[in-house]
């Protein structure tokens, strides 16, 4: 790949802070949901974001898709600043929003419960002018449903969201998101609410689509084995987030089999495994079980309050994100020059 090629999407030192107001005037605090993230996404790249609840995965995903405005930093679409486009070139911004689609964490929020599958799937096709007539729409929707193996499609088009199983709902949501042929799909926890036995099915659907269209995925999950499955099959990367920042980034095998950051090590210790010998031995080695508040993140290395290896410097100075191997990054004083 040409390193000088302009990426599809680039995130530069992104910060998204939420101000929490007191009931009667004044500011109670600032949540640093995303606090300095940089990332490049090229055609067909797959990046899995993992980390525990509240670490900023959804906020980063939404910012990538232009759904929340950054507090600081920039997002470039094919080299152009998207929030500048928003003010100066609405058409360009529209094109970016069309090309980068966000698949929400809560599938119910994406579906209007009083609309049938047909009406749901029609809406974006008409909105983004993919079809012009209702007749054309019917053919298109039937084709979409048989592509995602929701069969027989004629039966499903008249169903309402509550008449779908968890797996079917996610498939239809995926079909809805991809019906406008995006270049980047931000899939926010697509498998979390799905039965373990059906997760692979959904991921395989995403992989088939990737094979066909070389779409780029930002795959958000707190499930490490699934993050590995989707990234290893696509030559992608795993990004481990902690309190608004990447603490480790790299190819799945390296990250899982040889985790460098103590937080990544904790995630690997936490991930369920079927191997009974490993499963019976594995224990979390965190000093504190609960994550500190994102309103007031710890000074120095944000992980130091829970880290079993924390040293003096960790409580004072924030470690830089350094490249330890080609394409492998870690933010920890155990690996950085002091």
């Amino acid at each position, binding site marked *: 790949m040409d390193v000088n090629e302009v990426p599809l999407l680039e995130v530069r030192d992104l910060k998204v802070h939420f101000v929490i107001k007191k009931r009667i005037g004044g500011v109670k605090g600032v949540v640093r949901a995303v606090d300095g993230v940089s990332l490049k996404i090229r055609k067909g790249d797959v990046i899995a974001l993992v980390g525990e609840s509240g670490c900023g995965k959804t906020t980063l995903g939404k910012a990538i898709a232009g759904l929340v405005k950054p507090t600081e930093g920039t997002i470039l679409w094919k080299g152009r600043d998207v929030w500048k486009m928003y003010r100066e070139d609405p058409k360009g911004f529209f094109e970016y929003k069309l090309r980068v689609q966000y698949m929400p964490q809560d599938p119910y929020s994406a579906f209007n419960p009083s609309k049938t599958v047909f009406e749901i799937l029609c809406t974006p096709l008409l909105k983004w002018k993919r079809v012009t007539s209702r007749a054309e729409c019917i053919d298109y929707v039937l084709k979409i449903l048989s592509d995602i193996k929701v069969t027989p499609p004629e039966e499903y088009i008249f169903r309402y969201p509550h008449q779908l199983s968890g797996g079917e709902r996610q498939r239809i949501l995926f079909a809805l998101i991809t019906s406008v042929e995006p270049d980047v799909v931000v899939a926010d926890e697509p498998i979390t609410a799905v039965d373990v036995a059906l997760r692979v099915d959904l991921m395989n659907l995403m992989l088939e689509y990737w094979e066909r269209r070389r779409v780029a995925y930002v795959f958000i999950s707190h499930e490490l084995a699934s993050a590995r499955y989707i990234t290893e099959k696509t030559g992608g990367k795993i990004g481990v987030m902690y309190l608004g920042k990447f603490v480790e980034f790299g190819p799945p095998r390296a990250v899982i089999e040889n985790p460098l950051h103590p937080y990544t090590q904790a995630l690997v210790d*936490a991930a369920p495994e079927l191997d009974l010998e490993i499963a019976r031995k594995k224990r979390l080695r965190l000093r504190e079980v609960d994550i500190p508040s994102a309103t007031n993140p710890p000074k120095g290395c944000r992980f130091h309050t829970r880290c079993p290896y924390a040293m003096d410097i960790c409580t004072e100075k924030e470690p830089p994100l350094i490249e330890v191997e080609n394409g492998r990054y870690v933010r920890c004083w155990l690996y950085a020059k002091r």
Partner: protein
Amino acid sequence: MEGVLELPPNVVLRAEDLSVVYKMPRGIARVVDRVTIDFRVGRVTAIVGESGSGKTMMASALMKLVPYPGKIEGRILFRSDLLGGVVDILKLSPKELRIIRWREIAMVFQGAQNSFNPTIKIKDHFLDTARAHGLDEKIALEKACKLLELVKLDPERVLESYPHQLSGGMKQRTLIALSLLLDPKVLILDEPTSALDLISQKVLIDLLKDIHERYHMTMIFITHDLPLIAGLAHYVAVMYAFKVVEFGPIDKIIRNPRHPYTVGLLKAIPPLRGELRFVKPIPGSHPDPVNPPPGCRFWPRCPLATDVCRKVEPKMVEVEKDHFVACHRWEEVEVSKLWT
């Protein structure tokens, strides 16, 4: 007058021919269908199976708490200390039920972390439970502090908090502390980790392991995630289509599964390490409780199905010590040859 009920010494709770039946306009739904299962004293038994297979219904039936208008059939034998012997839970009076629920068998219901009363403090949740079962308030609070510490929470902070001030993982741990308030000897946990992220999940699993080691409690852990309980459970019951299709010690279930569905479940889960090319989803979908397939319920999805499977329902047989399977072709089941 019935004869005296009995249970083997190593069994504390037994469901016998247990069914849960709903009459609905579109037909009769047996959402638990003639299940027989033993829960061993001081052991952790996991009930696994996909969504809708009847796990919650079976667990609720064990406490005679199925949602109206479900009817429970069969027997549930329980060795009760407070009632002085083995009883059939389904035959108990409301008063007797009140005695054993919470004090002898406690259950953390699926999604219960969302059903905390948002207007009262955690402290009052503990006090309410204590009062309902005649436990002294002062003793209850002292105990609450100990239990909250046990589940790695700061008692002073948590007792004075309202539910919304706690994270999902903290709420779930609080619930576990609450369920232990009256020292039950059987604890039923229905999907206690499914809404939690992986660190909170593991914290909870490690805790349950500590609690089990400390109190040797009998636990029933319901989940759709088999790897999750690999390090915790001693026995596994695999449910498919409202029936238990395989039961045995976890080592046997994972290393020598004899039911094609169990093999399918094991293969459908991507491993954290090792090869990915053996990962295969189970094709087809789970049946509806009204009109399930005749014969073996798994035949429409089973690669080994024959005519017999389509017509005759397989019986549970003991294929090796303590390991039971309901499949006509269990002898031919080979992990490497199914869903290749």
